[in-house]
C-alpha cells in the first residue's frame, strides 16, 4: 500500500543547491570574460562601458605572445614524447609478461598522483647533473615524462578490450610483428591515442608546478601570466584569460566529437 506522498521539499532544494554550485563554478569565469571588455584599469562594479582596449594591449604584448608560442611548442613536443613512449609501454604491459611489470605501472603514475611540487623539485635537483640545465629543454623533458602515463593508461585500457586473437591470427597468417602493429593494432587504438594526445596537449599547456621549478629564460604562457600577476595586475590578464577559456572550450568540443566518432566506429 502506498503512503501519502509528503510535500516535495527535497527535490526543489536539491535543484537549488545544484544550480548554486553550478553558478559558483561558472560565475568567476564569466566575470573574467565580461571584465576583459572593461575600459577601466581597475576591476570595479559597475563596468563603465565596453572596450577592446585590453585585447589590443594583449596582442601587442610581445612577451605574452612569445610565451604562447613557447607553450604550444612544448605541448606538442611533450605530447609527442608521451605518445612515442607510452604506446610501446602500453603494448608491453598489455600483451607481455615480464618482471617488474607492477613496478612500472606504479612508477609511471607517480607524477600524476604526487603533488606537482614534489616532482618539480626532484627533477630540478637532478636534471642539471644529467646535463640538462634548468631551461626550456628541462621543461620539455619534464612534461614528456609525466605525459607518458596519460597515453599509457588510455591505450592500455583500449588494448585490454581488444581481442588478442586477431593479432594471433595475423601472426599465424605469416605477418611480421611490425605489419601486425601497423595494420591491426594501430587502427584499433587510434581513438585512444588521439584522445590521449589531446588530453596531453591540454595538460601540458596548463602545467604549472613542475614547469615552475624547471624554467629559466623564456616563459611558458601560465608562467608568464603568473609573472605578470606578480608584477602588478594589468587587466590585459582578463583578455588573455578569456582567450584561454575560449581555447579550452574549443579543445573539449573537438575532443568530445572525435571521441564520439571513434567509439562508434571502433565497434
Amino acid at each position, binding site marked *: 500500500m502506498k503512503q501519502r506522498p509528503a510535500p516535495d521539499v527535497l527535490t526543489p532544494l536539491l535543484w537549488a543547491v545544484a544550480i548554486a554550485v553550478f553558478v559558483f563554478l561558472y560565475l568567476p569565469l564569466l566575470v573574467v570574460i565580461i571584465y576583459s571588455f572593461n575600459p577601466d584599469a*581597475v576591476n570595479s562594479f559597475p563596468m563603465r562601458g565596453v572596450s577592446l582596449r585590453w585585447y589590443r594591449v594583449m596582442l601587442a604584448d610581445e612577451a605574452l605572445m612569445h610565451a604562447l608560442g613557447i607553450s604550444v611548442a612544448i605541448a606538442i613536443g611533450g605530447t609527442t614524447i608521451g605518445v612515442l613512449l607510452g604506446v610501446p609501454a602500453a603494448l608491453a604491459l598489455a600483451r607481455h609478461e615480464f618482471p617488474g611489470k607492477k*613496478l612500472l605501472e606504479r612508477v609511471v603514475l607517480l607524477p600524476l598522483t604526487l603533488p606537482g611540487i614534489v616532482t618539480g623539485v626532484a627533477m630540478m635537483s637532478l636534471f642539471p*647533473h644529467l646535463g640538462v640545465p634548468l*631551461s626550456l629543454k628541462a621543461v620539455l623533458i619534464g612534461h614528456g615524462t609525466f605525459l607518458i602515463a596519460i597515453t599509457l593508461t588510455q591505450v592500455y585500457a583500449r588494448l585490454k578490450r581488444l581481442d588478442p586473437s586477431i593479432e594471433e591470427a595475423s601472426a599465424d597468417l605469416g605477418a611480421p610483428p611490425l605489419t601486425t602493429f601497423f595494420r591491426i593494432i594501430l587502427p584499433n587504438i587510434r581513438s585512444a591515442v588521439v584522445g590521449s594526445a589531446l588530453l596531453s596537449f591540454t595538460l601540458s599547456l596548463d602545467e604549472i608546478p613542475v614547469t615552475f621549478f624547471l624554467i629559466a*629564460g623564456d616563459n611558458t604562457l601560465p608562467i608568464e601570466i603568473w609573472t605578470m600577476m606578480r*608584477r*602588478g595586475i594589468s587587466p590585459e590578464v582578463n583578455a588573455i584569460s578569456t582567450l584561454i577559456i575560449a581555447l579550452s572550450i574549443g579543445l573539449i568540443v573537438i575532443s568530445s566529437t572525435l571521441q564520439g566518432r571513434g567509439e562508434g566506429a571502433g565497434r
Partner: protein
Amino acid sequence: MKLVKWCLWLGVLLSTILLIACSKEEKPASAAAPGASEKPAAADPKTKFKGKTLNLLVWEGYADPQFTKGFEDEYGVTIKGTYFGSSDELVAKLKGSGSVYDVVSPSSDVATTLVQSSLVAPLDTAKITSYGDLAPALRDMKDAEKDGKSYGVPFTWGPDYLIYDADVIKEEPKSWNAFFDPKYKGKVSLWDDISNIYLMGQVLGFDKTDPAALYNMTDEQLAQVKKKLVELKPQVRKYWATAGELNDLFKNKEVALAVGWPLTVATLNKEGRNLKAVIPEEGATGWIDRLMISAGSQNKELAELYLDYATRPKTMAKVAEATNYNIANSKAGEHMSADLKKIYVTDAEVYFKRLNFWRHVKNRKGYNELWNEVKGAK
C-alpha cells in the same frame, strides 16, 4: 620484490654518484677570464652582435624600455629582462641557471657572496668609459672586489623608506611605529624579505652606535626583533614579493602604508595617485645596486658593452627618470630637468649620508630562518 630492492639500491647509488660529481663541478663552465671567449677586436662591435639577445636578471624597473631601447637600437640586439623579488632569489636563480643570464644587478648585501662563490665575472674597468665619473664613494667600495679585480659597476642606490597614501593619511607619519597604530590595522604592507629584520632593528635602536650592528645581530637581539615582527602581523594585509605587487596593493587601495622603494611612488604618481614617502626618525636602510656579469654568460662581450652603455650620463638620466632611484654618475645631471637635477645631484650627497646601507650578513641563513618563522607564526 627483489627486483624493486635491486632497482632502488642501484638508483640510490647512481644519484649519490651524480650528486658527488656535481658538488665538485659547481664552478661554472666559463670561469676563465672573459678574454678567453672574446673574438679578435677586428669586427665592428656595432654590427657583430646584431640579432642577439641579452638576458638581464635584475630588480624590477631595470629593464625598462625607456632606457634599454637606446642600447637595442645602437647594437641591433634585443634585451630581455627577468625580474627577481629579493636578493636571495637572485642568488638562487643564478646558482641554478647561470648560463642563461648575462647581466645581473645585485645589491650591496649579496655582492660579496656572488664574488666569493664565483658566480660573477671580473671586469675590465678600462672598457667602461664612464668609470671615472662614477661617484668615488660607491666605486671604491671593497665589497665587490677580489684579488685586486673589480666585479661590478655601481648603478643606482636608494632607500627602503616609508611610503603612504597621502589621500588616506593626511598627516605625515614620523616613525616606523605608525605601522603598529591600530587605526591602520590591515592596511600595512611589508616586503617579504629579511630586510624587515634590519627595519625592526632600527626601530629597537640597535644601530644607534654602530650601523653595522643591524647585520650582525646577537641571538638575543634577533629574538627581540622576532617578537616585534610577530606583533606586527595582525596589522599587515599582505607581504609584497615584488615592487609590482606593492604598486598593485596601493593601486587597488588595499593598503595605506608600506615600506618600499621610490619606484612605487614614481609609478603610481605618474598614474595620478598621491603617494608620499618619508625617512622616519629612526632612520632607514638603503641599498646600492651594481651591474655585474654572470660568470656563466655566453655573451660576456655584449654584456660589458651594456655595462658601458648603462653608466653613461645620458642613460643614467633616463634611469633616474624611470625609476626615481639615485644614480651613480653625477654627470647625468647635465641631461636632467632642473627638478630632477635638484633631487638626484644636488641633494644626493646629503641623502646618501642619512641611509644605513645594506651589508653582507654572515648569518644570512639564520636571518632567513627567522623571517620564515615570522611568516609561519599563527
